[in-house]
């Protein structure tokens, strides 16, 4: 037996159907919040996949570039200027552009793919490509393919894994696939190829070697990136921006979050989930208080305080939050597992995000409870007689 009667729990338990409805409603809200927030998170994580994978301490880009896939060019000379600064170890010039890829299994099907070019003797892609692959792309018309690109590019992965030679038409030029790297897709990007600067210019003959899209700057070990960044900024004209890794990622995230409606839509979805949950819990708690007004008035007449009754309602809110969160989280987890397979997006539930959503759920339920409490204020113990 309990030392003290757990009134909130007993009140909830007495109305089984209502409890089930409440828990289902809350679980639904929890799923909605989880999915929206997680998609939003996936958007940001996936948007900076290349920013994360490339090897650099400072990045140089045109001030007109606001996201990776639509980069603007700037003079390559600016990047090489940086080599003269103390603390700079090496630089890598990067060319980037969406090109047209024909599915090798179904050439009538063309699709855009991100083409990246760099000088293989420079170190910017040493984390992404093996030394062997960096050699391979020096051979004309050979590229390395992202094995985590979308399936619409054709069965490239399967064919290469099976030891077959694969070639595809890129911008109407036959190109051989010499290997695979791993990055993955994002909302603006379905797949990618990496090759040498020379091959890049073969695929895109209109591009000039002197105009690059990004410059990757690698510092000597032990250098303070912010300090070197400040020195470079002072000396180099304003026609290029020099950013730390974090700033470079922030520019991209900022674009997707603020400039496109995508970030807003997901945030809005999460807020909607929260509001739906709030209304459901409020409805449940309100009618619960309503149904028990006479009983609560009786308790007040017996000498229970308003504070006690408030705790009963809050106790109910917390129980509902916990009971609704558990199945909600379980289903959301299932959705992410399936969704990650289908979309190749980095959908995974971290402990932090689970804890965050739980706090939101708790706040949502407690908030509804406090709203429902206003009804309780009106309980007059003198009315029980």
């Amino acid at each position, binding site marked *: *037996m309990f*030392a*003290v*009667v757990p*009134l909130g729990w*007993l*009140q909830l*338990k*007495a*109305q089984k159907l209502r409890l089930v409805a409440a828990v289902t409603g809350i679980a639904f809200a929890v799923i909605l919040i989880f999915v929206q927030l997680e998609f939003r998170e996936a958007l940001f994580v996936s948007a900076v996949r290349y920013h994360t994978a490339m090897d650099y301490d400072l990045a140089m880009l045109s001030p007109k570039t606001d996201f990776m896939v639509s980069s603007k060019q700037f003079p390559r000379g600016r990047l090489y200027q940086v080599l003269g600064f103390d603390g700079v170890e090496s630089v890598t010039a990067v060319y980037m552009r969406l090109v047209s890829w024909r599915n090798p299994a179904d050439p009538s099907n063309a699709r855009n793919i991100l083409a990246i070019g760099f000088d293989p003797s420079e170190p910017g892609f040493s984390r992404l490509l093996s030394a062997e692959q960096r050699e391979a792309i020096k051979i004309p018309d050979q590229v390395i393919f992202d094995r985590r690109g979308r399936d619409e590019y054709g069965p490239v992965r399967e064919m290469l894994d099976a030891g077959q030679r694969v070639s595809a038409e890129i911008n109407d030029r036959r190109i051989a696939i010499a290997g695979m790297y791993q990055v993955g897709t994002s909302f603006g990007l379905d797949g990618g190829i990496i090759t040498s600067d020379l091959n890049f210019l073969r695929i895109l003959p209109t591009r000039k070697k002197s105009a690059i899209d990004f410059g990757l700057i690698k510092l000597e070990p032990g250098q303070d990136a912010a300090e070197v960044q400040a020195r470079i900024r002072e000396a180099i004209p304003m026609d290029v921006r020099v950013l730390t890794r974090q700033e470079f990622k922030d520019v991209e995230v900022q674009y997707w979050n603020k400039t496109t409606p995508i970030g807003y839509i997901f945030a809005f979805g999460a807020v909607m989930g929260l509001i739906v949950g709030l209304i459901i819990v409020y409805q449940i708690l309100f009618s619960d208080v309503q149904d*028990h007004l*006479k*009983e609560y008035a*009786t*308790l007040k*007449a*017996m*000498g*229970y*305080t308003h504070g006690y009754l408030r705790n009963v309602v809050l106790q109910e809110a917390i129980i509902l939050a916990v009971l609704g969160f558990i199945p909600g989280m379980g289903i959301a987890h299932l959705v992410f597992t399936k969704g990650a397979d289908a979309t190749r997006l980095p959908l995974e539930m971290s402990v932090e995000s689970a804890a965050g959503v739980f706090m939101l759920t708790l706040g949502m339920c407690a908030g509804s409870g406090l709203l429902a409490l206003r009804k309780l204020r009106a309980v007059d*113990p*003198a009315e*029980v*007689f």
Partner: protein
Amino acid sequence: MDTGTPIALEDVSYSFGKGALEKQILFDVGTRIEGGEIVILTGPSGSGKTTLLTLIGALRSAQKGSVKVLGQELLKASEKALIKVRRQIGYIFQSHNLLDSLTIHQNVQMALQLGGVRGAEAGKRIADVLQRVGLAEHEHKFPGELSGGQKQRAGIARALVNRPQIVLADEPTASLDKQSGRDVVDLIQDLAREDGSAVILVTHDNRILDVADRILHLEDGRMKSLSEVVSEGTSRMLNLLEKHDPHSANYLATFSFALARVAYADSKVSDSERDEMRRILHEVAKLEPAEVEFIMELSMMQKRARAGMDNRIANPALDKDRAEHFLSSLYAIAQADGVTSSEEIVEIEAIAAEFGLASSSNSDPG
């Protein structure tokens, strides 16, 4: 704390509303109720008895006068003080007011845990009190599984588990049939006597008035004496009878007059004699039981007047003041037709002599 009188009311007035809408509900009500005393509070609806009960129960704070409950003055008392008093009172409600989602055990526990009683001690006290109200077997049932009378018993167990010095009951029999109502009232009476609690019982139910040590009657927010209440009710009913069935009225009046003269001529009536009289009135005179009781009561009133003569020294019905009012009023009545005849004076003096009153009151108010 003062362990004397549990409830002391003095000049209590109470109004609802403000300004032009103000409506006074209670007017200068005063009484004292001692431990172990069972007081029934009656009165028509709207007479203010519920308001009075909520004032005594510390469910409202008093506005005027003095409401002392368990030594605590509740005049303009704070919510905190009210709550403290509430915890020392046992409430029995009209419709039991148990919490439906709690078992009987848990319902009683709700009252007990307010007093800080927990654990094994609580379990024992709950079992004890349920035993006392005869619900030991139903301890772990929900209110929905019990009959009306059982629920009311559970309500009583909840009210009494803290052994309160004051028990307030509001129409505890209203939703019960005659027998369950009787059982519930007897139970309240027994338990209150055992615990020495002061009990106030609000009721409309005339069938339970006999458990009262004292009856308080409220009408339009004022206390009325029982004699006033009985006189008013009876005279109104007699007038109705006179108006709608004068024949029966005469028949009953004649019977009671005759009965008083015949049966009480020797001033001694035993219980068995009374039963025999009831039987005769019912079987020979063909009167209904209620009519028999009515005649018995009317003739008893006349017998009491005579008894007043016989016991005038031991138990004077007329003290000095009242004797004077009595005689003065007789002379005034004789004067009512404008002339006081000698026959009238002789009759008054005879009455005065019978009642042992000196008819020296010649200073009639002519």
